[in-house]
Protein backbone atom coordinates (compact mmCIF):
# COMPACT_ATOMS: atom_id res chain seq x y z
CA UNK A 1 0.00 0.00 0.00
CA UNK A 2 1.35 3.37 -1.05
CA UNK A 3 0.70 5.12 2.28
CA UNK A 4 2.56 2.51 4.30
CA UNK A 5 5.39 2.54 1.75
CA UNK A 6 5.70 6.33 2.07
CA UNK A 7 5.64 6.12 5.86
CA UNK A 8 8.24 3.35 6.00
CA UNK A 9 10.57 4.87 3.39
CA UNK A 10 10.65 8.26 5.06
CA UNK A 11 10.94 6.63 8.48
CA UNK A 12 14.15 5.00 7.27
CA UNK A 13 15.38 8.33 5.88
CA UNK A 14 14.62 10.04 9.20
CA UNK A 15 16.23 7.28 11.25
CA UNK A 16 19.50 7.02 9.36
CA UNK A 17 20.56 10.55 8.64
CA UNK A 18 22.69 12.35 11.16
CA UNK A 19 23.56 16.03 11.09
CA UNK A 20 20.47 17.40 9.39
CA UNK A 21 20.26 19.53 6.26
CA UNK A 22 21.94 18.05 3.22
CA UNK A 23 23.15 15.06 5.21
CA UNK A 24 19.79 13.57 4.18
CA UNK A 25 20.36 14.15 0.49
CA UNK A 26 22.20 10.92 -0.42
CA UNK A 27 19.64 8.65 1.23
CA UNK A 28 16.69 10.64 -0.16
CA UNK A 29 18.21 10.50 -3.62
CA UNK A 30 18.70 6.73 -3.29
CA UNK A 31 15.20 5.93 -2.02
CA UNK A 32 13.13 8.41 -4.01
CA UNK A 33 14.80 7.52 -7.31
CA UNK A 34 14.63 3.79 -6.60
CA UNK A 35 10.88 4.03 -6.02
CA UNK A 36 10.50 6.12 -9.19
CA UNK A 37 8.75 8.84 -7.20
CA UNK A 38 10.90 11.59 -8.70
CA UNK A 39 13.56 12.12 -11.36
CA UNK A 40 16.97 13.41 -10.30
CA UNK A 41 16.43 16.71 -12.15
CA UNK A 42 13.10 17.16 -10.30
CA UNK A 43 14.86 16.47 -7.02
CA UNK A 44 17.47 19.14 -7.76
CA UNK A 45 14.69 21.60 -8.67
CA UNK A 46 13.00 20.79 -5.41
CA UNK A 47 16.16 21.55 -3.41
CA UNK A 48 15.83 25.08 -4.77
CA UNK A 49 12.16 25.24 -3.75
CA UNK A 50 13.08 23.98 -0.28
CA UNK A 51 15.83 26.59 0.08
CA UNK A 52 13.34 29.31 -0.82
CA UNK A 53 10.62 28.15 1.60
CA UNK A 54 10.80 27.87 5.38
CA UNK A 55 11.42 24.66 7.24
CA UNK A 56 13.89 21.78 7.19
CA UNK A 57 14.74 20.15 3.86
CA UNK A 58 13.76 16.68 5.11
CA UNK A 59 10.24 17.77 6.07
CA UNK A 60 9.80 19.74 2.85
CA UNK A 61 10.82 16.88 0.58
CA UNK A 62 8.73 14.38 2.54
CA UNK A 63 5.64 16.57 2.25
CA UNK A 64 6.23 17.15 -1.45
CA UNK A 65 6.89 13.55 -2.44
CA UNK A 66 3.95 12.41 -0.30
CA UNK A 67 1.61 14.92 -1.95
CA UNK A 68 2.77 13.99 -5.46
CA UNK A 69 2.42 10.27 -4.89
CA UNK A 70 -0.55 10.05 -2.52
CA UNK A 71 -2.28 13.41 -2.09
CA UNK A 72 -3.02 14.85 1.35
CA UNK A 73 -2.93 11.52 3.18
CA UNK A 74 0.29 10.64 1.38
CA UNK A 75 1.98 13.85 2.47
CA UNK A 76 0.81 13.32 6.06
CA UNK A 77 2.22 9.78 6.05
CA UNK A 78 5.59 10.77 4.56
CA UNK A 79 6.01 13.75 6.90
CA UNK A 80 5.02 11.69 9.92
CA UNK A 81 7.51 9.05 8.82
CA UNK A 82 10.45 11.44 8.57
CA UNK A 83 9.64 13.13 11.90
CA UNK A 84 8.85 10.06 14.00
CA UNK A 85 12.38 8.61 14.46
CA UNK A 86 13.86 11.86 15.80
CA UNK A 87 10.81 12.44 17.97
CA UNK A 88 11.05 9.01 19.61
CA UNK A 89 14.83 9.07 19.97
CA UNK A 90 14.91 12.55 21.50
CA UNK A 91 12.23 11.55 24.03
CA UNK A 92 14.45 8.66 25.10
CA UNK A 93 17.63 10.76 25.10
CA UNK A 94 15.97 13.54 27.12
CA UNK A 95 15.19 11.00 29.84
CA UNK A 96 18.71 9.63 30.04
CA UNK A 97 20.49 12.81 29.09
CA UNK A 98 23.51 12.70 31.40
CA UNK A 99 24.30 9.09 30.52
CA UNK A 100 23.91 9.80 26.82
CA UNK A 101 26.22 12.81 26.93
CA UNK A 102 29.08 10.84 28.49
CA UNK A 103 28.50 7.66 26.50
CA UNK A 104 31.69 6.45 24.84
CA UNK A 105 29.68 4.33 22.42
CA UNK A 106 27.78 7.37 21.10
CA UNK A 107 31.03 9.29 20.66
CA UNK A 108 32.59 6.31 18.91
CA UNK A 109 29.69 5.93 16.49
CA UNK A 110 29.85 9.66 15.71
CA UNK A 111 33.56 9.44 14.77
CA UNK A 112 32.41 7.12 11.98
CA UNK A 113 29.22 8.93 10.99
CA UNK A 114 30.52 12.48 10.57
CA UNK A 115 33.08 11.62 7.88
CA UNK A 116 30.65 9.09 6.34
CA UNK A 117 28.21 11.92 5.59
CA UNK A 118 31.00 13.84 3.81
CA UNK A 119 31.80 10.84 1.60
CA UNK A 120 28.14 10.17 0.86
CA UNK A 121 27.41 13.75 -0.13
CA UNK A 122 30.51 13.72 -2.30
CA UNK A 123 29.07 10.74 -4.16
CA UNK A 124 25.65 12.42 -4.45
CA UNK A 125 27.32 15.51 -5.94
CA UNK A 126 28.88 13.41 -8.72
CA UNK A 127 25.49 12.11 -9.92
CA UNK A 128 23.95 15.57 -9.51
CA UNK A 129 26.74 17.14 -11.58
CA UNK A 130 26.09 14.67 -14.41
CA UNK A 131 22.39 15.62 -14.42
CA UNK A 132 23.15 19.34 -14.37
CA UNK A 133 25.89 19.51 -16.98
CA UNK A 134 25.21 16.58 -19.34
CA UNK A 135 21.49 15.77 -18.95
CA UNK A 136 21.35 13.92 -22.26
CA UNK A 137 24.41 11.75 -21.55
CA UNK A 138 28.03 12.23 -22.49
CA UNK A 139 29.09 12.76 -26.09
CA UNK A 140 31.40 15.21 -27.82
CA UNK A 141 28.28 17.10 -28.93
CA UNK A 142 28.04 18.81 -25.54
CA UNK A 143 31.13 20.89 -26.30
CA UNK A 144 29.23 22.66 -29.06
CA UNK A 145 26.12 23.09 -26.90
CA UNK A 146 25.78 26.59 -25.46
CA UNK A 147 23.62 25.41 -22.53
CA UNK A 148 26.58 23.35 -21.26
CA UNK A 149 28.74 26.48 -21.05
CA UNK A 150 25.87 28.52 -19.57
CA UNK A 151 25.49 25.97 -16.77
CA UNK A 152 29.23 25.95 -16.19
CA UNK A 153 29.44 29.74 -15.88
CA UNK A 154 26.38 29.97 -13.57
CA UNK A 155 27.79 27.14 -11.45
CA UNK A 156 31.21 28.77 -11.08
CA UNK A 157 29.70 32.13 -10.17
CA UNK A 158 27.33 30.60 -7.61
CA UNK A 159 30.09 28.53 -6.06
CA UNK A 160 32.17 31.66 -5.46
CA UNK A 161 29.15 33.43 -3.92
CA UNK A 162 28.21 30.42 -1.76
CA UNK A 163 31.76 30.08 -0.43
CA UNK A 164 31.68 33.78 0.39
CA UNK A 165 28.63 32.96 2.56
CA UNK A 166 26.05 34.76 0.46
CA UNK A 167 22.58 33.58 1.60
CA UNK A 168 21.33 30.51 -0.35
CA UNK A 169 18.10 32.22 -1.38
CA UNK A 170 20.07 35.02 -3.06
CA UNK A 171 22.24 32.48 -4.89
CA UNK A 172 19.09 30.74 -6.14
CA UNK A 173 17.40 33.97 -7.27
CA UNK A 174 20.53 35.02 -9.13
CA UNK A 175 20.94 31.64 -10.83
CA UNK A 176 17.26 31.76 -11.87
CA UNK A 177 17.66 35.23 -13.40
CA UNK A 178 20.81 34.18 -15.25
CA UNK A 179 19.04 31.06 -16.49
CA UNK A 180 16.13 33.12 -17.83
CA UNK A 181 18.44 35.68 -19.42
CA UNK A 182 20.52 32.97 -21.10
CA UNK A 183 17.41 31.13 -22.28
CA UNK A 184 15.92 34.14 -24.04
CA UNK A 185 19.12 35.81 -25.28
CA UNK A 186 21.27 32.92 -26.49
Amino acid at each position, binding site marked *: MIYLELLWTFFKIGAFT*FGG*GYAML*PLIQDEVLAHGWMELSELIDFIAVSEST*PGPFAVNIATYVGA*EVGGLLGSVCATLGVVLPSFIIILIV*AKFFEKFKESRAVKGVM*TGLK*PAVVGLIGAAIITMAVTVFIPTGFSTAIFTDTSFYVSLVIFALCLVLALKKVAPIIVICLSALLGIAAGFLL
Partner: protein
Amino acid sequence: MKNSKLKNAISLFLTFMKIGAFTFGGGYAMIPLIQKEAVEKHGWLTDDDILEIVAIAESTPGPIAINSATFVGYRLCGFFGALCATVGVVLPSFLIIFLISKVLREFGNIKAVQYAFNGIRAGVLALVIKALWTMYKKCPKNIVSYIVIGAAFILTAFLKVEILIVIIGCAIFGLISSLIISRRSKA
Protein backbone atom coordinates in the same frame (compact mmCIF):
# COMPACT_ATOMS: atom_id res chain seq x y z
CA MET B 1 -1.24 23.56 37.92
CA LYS B 2 -2.98 21.82 35.07
CA ASN B 3 -4.00 25.15 33.63
CA SER B 4 -0.44 26.47 33.55
CA LYS B 5 0.72 23.29 31.80
CA LEU B 6 -1.85 23.79 29.06
CA LYS B 7 -0.81 27.41 28.78
CA ASN B 8 2.84 26.39 28.40
CA ALA B 9 1.94 23.80 25.78
CA ILE B 10 0.00 26.34 23.72
CA SER B 11 2.85 28.80 24.06
CA LEU B 12 5.32 26.11 22.91
CA PHE B 13 3.15 25.30 19.91
CA LEU B 14 2.85 28.93 18.82
CA THR B 15 6.53 29.72 19.42
CA PHE B 16 7.76 26.75 17.44
CA MET B 17 5.27 27.46 14.68
CA LYS B 18 6.84 30.91 14.41
CA ILE B 19 10.32 29.38 14.37
CA GLY B 20 9.23 26.90 11.69
CA ALA B 21 7.68 29.64 9.56
CA PHE B 22 10.64 31.98 9.59
CA THR B 23 13.74 29.86 9.10
CA PHE B 24 14.74 29.34 5.55
CA GLY B 25 16.99 26.47 4.60
CA GLY B 26 16.42 24.73 7.94
CA GLY B 27 19.15 23.18 10.05
CA TYR B 28 21.48 25.47 11.91
CA ALA B 29 19.66 28.55 10.62
CA MET B 30 17.09 27.71 13.27
CA ILE B 31 19.40 27.78 16.28
CA PRO B 32 19.71 31.58 16.67
CA LEU B 33 15.93 31.92 16.45
CA ILE B 34 15.37 29.20 19.07
CA GLN B 35 17.92 30.95 21.27
CA LYS B 36 16.11 34.26 20.91
CA GLU B 37 12.65 32.83 21.58
CA ALA B 38 13.35 30.17 24.21
CA VAL B 39 16.15 31.92 26.13
CA GLU B 40 15.69 35.66 25.77
CA LYS B 41 11.94 35.98 25.33
CA HIS B 42 10.40 33.12 27.35
CA GLY B 43 13.23 32.20 29.71
CA TRP B 44 12.54 28.50 29.14
CA LEU B 45 16.20 27.63 28.71
CA THR B 46 19.70 28.98 29.34
CA ASP B 47 22.44 29.53 26.76
CA ASP B 48 24.16 26.39 28.05
CA ASP B 49 21.01 24.40 27.33
CA ILE B 50 21.14 25.59 23.72
CA LEU B 51 24.71 24.32 23.33
CA GLU B 52 23.63 20.97 24.76
CA ILE B 53 20.68 20.78 22.41
CA VAL B 54 22.94 21.41 19.41
CA ALA B 55 25.31 18.68 20.61
CA ILE B 56 22.43 16.23 21.02
CA ALA B 57 20.84 17.15 17.71
CA GLU B 58 24.18 16.46 16.02
CA SER B 59 24.54 12.99 17.51
CA THR B 60 20.98 11.79 16.98
CA PRO B 61 19.31 11.11 13.65
CA GLY B 62 16.83 13.46 12.03
CA PRO B 63 16.59 17.15 11.18
CA ILE B 64 18.01 19.54 13.79
CA ALA B 65 14.76 21.54 13.85
CA ILE B 66 12.74 18.48 14.87
CA ASN B 67 15.33 17.33 17.40
CA SER B 68 15.51 20.69 19.16
CA ALA B 69 11.74 21.25 19.15
CA THR B 70 11.12 17.83 20.70
CA PHE B 71 13.88 18.35 23.27
CA VAL B 72 12.78 21.84 24.36
CA GLY B 73 9.13 20.75 24.52
CA TYR B 74 9.97 17.71 26.61
CA ARG B 75 12.14 19.70 29.02
CA LEU B 76 9.30 22.16 29.55
CA CYS B 77 6.22 20.01 29.84
CA GLY B 78 7.00 16.38 29.16
CA PHE B 79 5.54 14.30 26.34
CA PHE B 80 2.64 16.66 25.62
CA GLY B 81 5.03 19.59 25.36
CA ALA B 82 7.29 17.64 22.99
CA LEU B 83 4.29 16.85 20.81
CA CYS B 84 3.09 20.48 20.70
CA ALA B 85 6.53 21.90 19.87
CA THR B 86 7.21 19.30 17.16
CA VAL B 87 3.83 19.67 15.46
CA GLY B 88 4.28 23.44 15.67
CA VAL B 89 7.68 23.45 13.97
CA VAL B 90 6.54 21.11 11.17
CA LEU B 91 3.16 22.68 10.40
CA PRO B 92 4.25 25.81 8.46
CA SER B 93 6.51 23.95 6.02
CA PHE B 94 3.93 21.21 5.65
CA LEU B 95 1.20 23.66 4.66
CA ILE B 96 3.41 25.73 2.38
CA ILE B 97 4.90 22.76 0.54
CA PHE B 98 1.52 21.07 0.22
CA LEU B 99 0.15 24.18 -1.50
CA ILE B 100 3.23 24.47 -3.72
CA SER B 101 2.93 20.83 -4.80
CA LYS B 102 -0.46 21.69 -6.34
CA VAL B 103 1.01 24.31 -8.67
CA LEU B 104 4.67 23.35 -9.22
CA ARG B 105 3.95 20.98 -12.13
CA GLU B 106 1.80 23.57 -13.95
CA PHE B 107 4.47 26.24 -13.50
CA GLY B 108 6.88 23.83 -15.16
CA ASN B 109 5.15 24.29 -18.51
CA ILE B 110 6.02 27.99 -18.70
CA LYS B 111 9.07 28.67 -20.86
CA ALA B 112 10.59 31.25 -18.49
CA VAL B 113 10.26 28.83 -15.56
CA GLN B 114 12.06 26.12 -17.52
CA TYR B 115 14.91 28.52 -18.27
CA ALA B 116 14.98 29.63 -14.64
CA PHE B 117 15.33 26.03 -13.44
CA ASN B 118 18.16 25.43 -15.94
CA GLY B 119 20.06 28.15 -14.10
CA ILE B 120 18.86 27.09 -10.67
CA ARG B 121 20.15 23.53 -11.06
CA ALA B 122 23.68 24.84 -11.52
CA GLY B 123 23.17 27.14 -8.50
CA VAL B 124 21.89 24.29 -6.32
CA LEU B 125 24.90 22.17 -7.23
CA ALA B 126 27.12 25.01 -5.97
CA LEU B 127 25.12 25.23 -2.72
CA VAL B 128 25.44 21.51 -2.06
CA ILE B 129 29.20 21.68 -2.67
CA LYS B 130 29.36 24.55 -0.18
CA ALA B 131 27.46 22.38 2.34
CA LEU B 132 29.93 19.56 1.73
CA TRP B 133 32.83 21.92 2.42
CA THR B 134 31.23 23.10 5.68
CA MET B 135 30.69 19.52 6.86
CA TYR B 136 34.23 18.53 5.88
CA LYS B 137 35.62 21.37 7.99
CA LYS B 138 33.66 20.10 11.01
CA CYS B 139 35.12 16.58 10.71
CA PRO B 140 38.06 15.72 12.93
CA LYS B 141 41.22 15.63 10.80
CA ASN B 142 42.66 12.20 11.48
CA ILE B 143 43.34 8.94 9.71
CA VAL B 144 40.01 7.38 10.74
CA SER B 145 38.09 10.30 9.17
CA TYR B 146 40.03 10.12 5.91
CA ILE B 147 39.53 6.36 5.61
CA VAL B 148 35.78 6.68 6.23
CA ILE B 149 35.35 9.61 3.80
CA GLY B 150 37.22 7.71 1.08
CA ALA B 151 35.45 4.41 1.71
CA ALA B 152 31.95 5.95 1.87
CA PHE B 153 32.62 7.87 -1.35
CA ILE B 154 34.00 4.93 -3.34
CA LEU B 155 31.41 2.44 -2.06
CA THR B 156 28.44 4.63 -3.06
CA ALA B 157 29.77 6.45 -6.14
CA PHE B 158 31.47 3.55 -7.92
CA LEU B 159 30.48 0.27 -6.30
CA LYS B 160 26.81 1.30 -5.88
CA VAL B 161 26.53 -0.20 -2.40
CA GLU B 162 23.26 0.68 -0.66
CA ILE B 163 23.59 3.84 1.40
CA LEU B 164 21.97 2.36 4.51
CA ILE B 165 24.61 -0.38 4.57
CA VAL B 166 27.40 2.19 4.14
CA ILE B 167 26.03 4.28 7.03
CA ILE B 168 25.75 1.28 9.37
CA GLY B 169 29.21 0.07 8.33
CA CYS B 170 30.80 3.46 9.00
CA ALA B 171 29.12 3.66 12.42
CA ILE B 172 30.50 0.25 13.40
CA PHE B 173 33.95 1.16 12.05
CA GLY B 174 33.94 4.40 14.07
CA LEU B 175 32.87 2.57 17.22
CA ILE B 176 35.53 -0.14 16.91
CA SER B 177 38.34 2.26 15.97
CA SER B 178 37.56 4.59 18.89
CA LEU B 179 37.53 1.62 21.30
CA ILE B 180 40.92 0.48 19.99
CA ILE B 181 42.38 3.99 20.24
CA SER B 182 41.13 4.53 23.80
CA ARG B 183 42.45 1.11 24.88
CA ARG B 184 45.85 1.84 23.36
CA SER B 185 46.12 5.21 25.07
CA LYS B 186 45.34 3.52 28.39
CA ALA B 187 48.04 0.87 27.95
